[in-house]
């Protein structure tokens, strides 16, 4: 009897413990929900992680959600992951956004960067100071360095400009994709390429070391943050509010890029001019 009693007591205690554990676990999963912040690989991964670490910590703190920062292997993977809602938050270049929308439809835009007080940026076709290239026409028969094939200012828009001027791949001596803006400027500076295309920020960064501009691109809306379209609206709003709520010239911003001054609201229409440029390069949108 006593043994029976003790057995039933033990079973009862075990049941209570299991129930308690299950409840606690369910509460923890909800309260500590994890999110991902996916960054496109426009810089070496380590540098990107460093740059976005303050923002990641900030969003985690504000949203109360543990946010992990990840770097995509390449632009295709990035667009795919964002398009297929595989990541919660994503940082995109304007061309990638246009491609994303073109391929997977719109995504909730959270905010875009404001650099030096402007939410737009532009690119520049560069050559070395000692180069004899003075206009886009002079590029024919020369070597040309592009950045990433998905990069807005190191490839897509400059390519559009070259096409406008009739400078095709064939008319170039050769062209190479160097995957990053810095590689482009450095490739030109080191003399491996006669010219290249980079965004203005990188150009200014290296101009004094021996660069000269040949032509400027039209302004394009800045990089932006989008959210997973399947993310609850309140979470999207919370994130948007958090991003837009970042103080101007906060270290979170300058960490991402030196000249970023604020996060500002953005709409899909802000990227229409780019979209129209890319439409002239249909093969690019299909990629």
């Amino acid at each position, binding site marked *: 009897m006593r043994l029976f009693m003790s057995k039933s007591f033990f079973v009862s205690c075990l049941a209570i413990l299991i129930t308690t554990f299950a409840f606690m676990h369910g509460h923890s999963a909800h309260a500590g929900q994890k999110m991902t912040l996916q960054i496109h690989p426009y810089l*070496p991964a380590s*540098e990107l992680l460093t740059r976005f670490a303050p923002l990641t910590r900030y969003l985690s703190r504000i949203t109360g959600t543990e946010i992990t920062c990840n770097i995509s292997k390449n632009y295709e993977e990035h667009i795919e992951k964002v398009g297929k809602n595989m990541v919660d938050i994503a940082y995109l270049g304007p061309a990638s956004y246009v491609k994303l929308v073109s391929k997977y439809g719109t995504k909730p835009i959270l905010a875009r960067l404001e650099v030096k007080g402007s939410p737009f940026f532009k690119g520049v076709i560069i050559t070395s100071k000692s180069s004899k290239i003075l206009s886009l026409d002079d590029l024919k028969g020369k070597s040309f360095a592009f950045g990433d094939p998905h990069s807005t200012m190191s490839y897509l828009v400059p390519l559009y400009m070259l096409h406008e001027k009739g400078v095709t791949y064939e008319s170039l001596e050769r062209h*190479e994709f*160097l*995957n*990053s803006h*810095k*590689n482009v400027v*450095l*490739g030109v*500076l*080191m*003399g*491996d390429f006669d010219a290249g295309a980079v965004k203005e920020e990188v150009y200014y960064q290296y101009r004094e*070391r*021996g660069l000269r501009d040949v032509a400027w691109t039209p302004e394009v809306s800045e990089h932006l943050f989008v959210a997973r379209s399947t993310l609850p609206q309140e979470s999207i709003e919370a994130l948007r509010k958090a991003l837009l709520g970042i103080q101007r010239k906060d270290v979170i911003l300058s960490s991402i890029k030196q000249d970023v001054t604020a996060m500002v609201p953005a709409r899909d229409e802000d990227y229409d001019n780019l979209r129209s440029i890319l439409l002239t390069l249909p093969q690019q949108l299909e990629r």
Partner: protein
Amino acid sequence: MINTGTFKYSRVILVFVTVLLVFLIIVISAIFSQHKEMMEEIRHDAQRELELIGSFTQGALLRQDYASVETFLTQWAHDHKEILSLKAVAPNGFELVNVTRDSLSEATFNLHQKVSYEGRELIDLEMTKDMSPVQEGMVKLSVPLVLGSILLVVIIGAVLWFAMKKLALVPMEKELALREQAEKKFRILLESAPDSLVLVNKDGTIYMVNGQTEVLFGYRREELEGQEVQLLMPERFRERHKKFTEQFSESPKSRPMGHNLELFGLTKDGREFPADISLSPVETEEGSFILSAVRDISERKNAEEKIRRSFHFQAAISSILNISLEPVQLEIQLQRILDAILAIPSLSLESMGCIYLVEEIPDLLVMKANRGLPDSIKSGCSTVPFKECLCGEAASEGKVLFAECTDRRHKTEVHTSQEKPHSHYCVPIISGDKTLGVINLVVKEGHKKSEDEENLLKSIANTLAVTIEHNRSDLERQKLQEQLSQVDKMSALGRLTANVAHEIRNPLTLIGGFARKLNKDIAEGTKDKEFATIIIDEVSRLEKILTNVLTYSRETPVHRERHNIKDVVEESLKPFKDKFEKKSIVIASELNGTPEVMMDRDQVREVFNNILSNALDSMADGGMLTISCAPELIKSRKYMAVHFRDTGEGSLKIISKLFLSPSIQRRS
């Protein structure tokens, strides 16, 4: 036992401290050497680092990932504070990376790496590294290490010192004190030894000597210690002695040195001396030694030599005496005596020599015996006058003469050039004040004369003198005996003659008387007259002869009285005065002041009568007779000599000497 000395802590401490200092220096050197190696290693690592950077850079540049290169190199330079400068310069001169850090450090080194691929130059890497932090670190590390080493050395030194002092030095000090005492005893023993003691190691090197050695050999001990022992012996023994030393070292035992050998020592001034040497092996902690006791036996040797020579000399004199007693002729005796002299072994003679004697001719040496002389000398030196050559010099001086053949007094004209160099002993043979002869002995070259040799030769010469005198007195005696015998014969003959004369005298007187009577009766101019005159003259001549015979044979006693010589001479001259005047002979007497002497006046007058008669006969055509008188020494006795000099035939001089002694001897 040997060479202990006083134990001195200061030396031990000095050595100890020196060892510790050396140890410390080695430790510090090791530390600094380690530092140097570390610097090299750092440099090497930096080179490897640059190579790795280059390798990475090459890969990135080949991928045209310039940004990675820039980022990586910039980051690398920033992260590594010791990199003062890192440059990546493209072939076109573009500085992909140029990170420079301000530094005042002078401890830098530059590295350079060219990055290329298949001959294409990609980039040039230059890196300057600052070594000062490393150096500072090393210095910071070294200071405690060095200080620690010093401290360690001091602690180890102190511990070792106290341990060594307790375990080793104190017992050693006691041991050394004991050894010092033993050493002192040994020294005292060594120094008190009457002999020269020389301690030699197995190699023949002199280790220690005593004071007697300094006295005996004339060296100071500092000059000897450390030298080879052969220094103390004549050159001719040295090589052989080295072998003996080795043999002795192989089987050491106490024994006299040089059995059956004459040993000699050599002093510092080059003098050799005969020595007795005994050897004793001495075993010490410092190894095996040989203790040689050296004794100068010069005096003993000299004494032995003297005895030996004395024996030889005695034997020689004995032999000479035996020869002198032999009844043989003097020449034979002299030859045998010469041989006996030449056979004396101690005189270093060349078996050559001769004996000279003075014979009838005074002051002339005549060679009477010789041995080994060349014919040229035998003939050339057969006679030597006194004062000539060495022998003449010795004879006239009456002294033993020793001279080399090159002596200026030596007459060399009879000597040949083949003769070996030699010396001469010329020993006069003297009897009383008379030199009887000279012994000439040829001595080997280099022989030194000695007093005992001279004494021996004098003894031999004296013996020889006795022998000669003995021999000569024998001859004299024989002559006297012969003369005595002749005198006896003459005496008998005289007596017979006197008797005969006496017997003849009477009839002869009768014949003479009758002849003179008959002569008166015989007419002049007849043959009978002539015969009678002849008979008378012949009888007169026979009577005169008989008178002389009777006078000569008459034995009359001697009556000695003191008479003046002048008176006797004048008495004798009186009967001859007329005869001298007739023959115009002038008498010159130089007898004024003559003394009185003892004489038999009648006999002296008879002698004078005969002399005057002879003078008269010899000066038939006239002349001068000078008579003088003068004192004269003969054999230390004073005589008065009366001299008669005439100018007759052959300038005959008749001399008569009258003696002061009781006997009167006639000399002519």
